[in-house]
């Protein structure tokens, strides 16, 4: 005879459990961590390079790079002066907590203050997989268009900070900043935003100060 067994368990709970373990490990070592997400070409690696260059004299940085293939991004982070680990996901479109867990084993954690995780370029899947990092950061860039919050609500809803990159291109592409910001505000009221350009470095200072301040206040706690 068939009987019904009530379950009511979140399907992502296995990933979420490992994510909590990752967070505990980072907290034990007083490491502050950011998960950077964006479309391919949104400027994740460029922003990471600039962040390393501006903070390398004050913080010890590590970068964990997720990509489907190649170590191009990790190589760029290493040249900029950070400890870098590449994760090749072998086709998976996102990082998950297990992948971060094994990458963390490759880093001397007691020698690190700030860990930046560069997720796979994708606006859909990374939003569903918590990694255990302290803050989720989305980089949106002007040429992608002002409709992205409307098309990828899951991503915009789940982040703790938003970088609006490539603002130097605003005069050249149609982008209605009010429409964009309205979409963001509905999904994520009061979200902290950093309009900047990695090319001209306009606006970069407030991003750098925020990262530094977040890392330092995490260490004090």
């Amino acid at each position: 005879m068939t009987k019904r067994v009530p379950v009511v368990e979140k399907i992502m709970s296995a990933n979420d459990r490992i994510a909590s373990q990752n967070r505990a490990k980072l907290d034990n070592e007083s490491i502050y961590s950011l998960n950077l997400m964006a479309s391919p070409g949104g400027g994740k690696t460029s922003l990471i390079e600039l962040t390393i260059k501006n903070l390398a004299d004050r913080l010890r940085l590590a970068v964990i790079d997720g990509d489907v293939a190649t170590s191009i991004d990790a190589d760029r982070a290493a040249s900029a002066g950070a400890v870098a680990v590449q994760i090749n996901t072998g086709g998976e479109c996102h990082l998950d907590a297990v992948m971060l867990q094994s990458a963390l084993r490759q880093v001397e954690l007691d020698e690190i203050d700030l860990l930046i995780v560069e997720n796979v370029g994708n606006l859909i899947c990374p939003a569903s997989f918590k990694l255990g990092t302290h803050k989720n950061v989305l980089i949106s860039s002007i040429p992608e268009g002002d409709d992205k919050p409307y098309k990828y609500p899951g991503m915009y809803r789940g982040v703790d900070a938003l970088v609006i990159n490539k603002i130097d291109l605003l005069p050249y592409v149609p982008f209605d900043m009010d429409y964009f910001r309205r979409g963001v505000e509905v999904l994520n009221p009061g979200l902290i935003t950093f309009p900047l350009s990695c090319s001209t470095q306009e606006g970069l200072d407030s991003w750098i100060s925020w990262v530094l301040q977040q890392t330092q206040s995490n260490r004090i706690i």
Partner: protein
Amino acid sequence: MHELPITQNILEIALRHAKAANASRIMSINIVIGELASIVDDSIQFYWDIISNDTIAEGAKLNFNRINAEFECKVCGERYKLQGNELVCPDCGSLKIDIVAGKEFFLESIDVE
């Protein structure tokens, strides 16, 4: 696409609960998916047929209960569904809204023998 690891999670949860209930066979699995959860059920079914092989869940039917996204305006209390691109309240134009349904993604129950 991230449906493979998700399907593996579904199998793991279902097998664990079936074992706890001393079941010998899982007949169906009832899953609740919200419109905003960005999960493709056809794709889960595809992986399911492969990974459930040789388990007590082999051949189990996956039932997907889809929940439409629904919003509630925090200013005027209007409840509404997605209409085109705009998420603002259709009644008063407010930007302050709550998502009251559509984010669900959980395994509700299994039917076992």
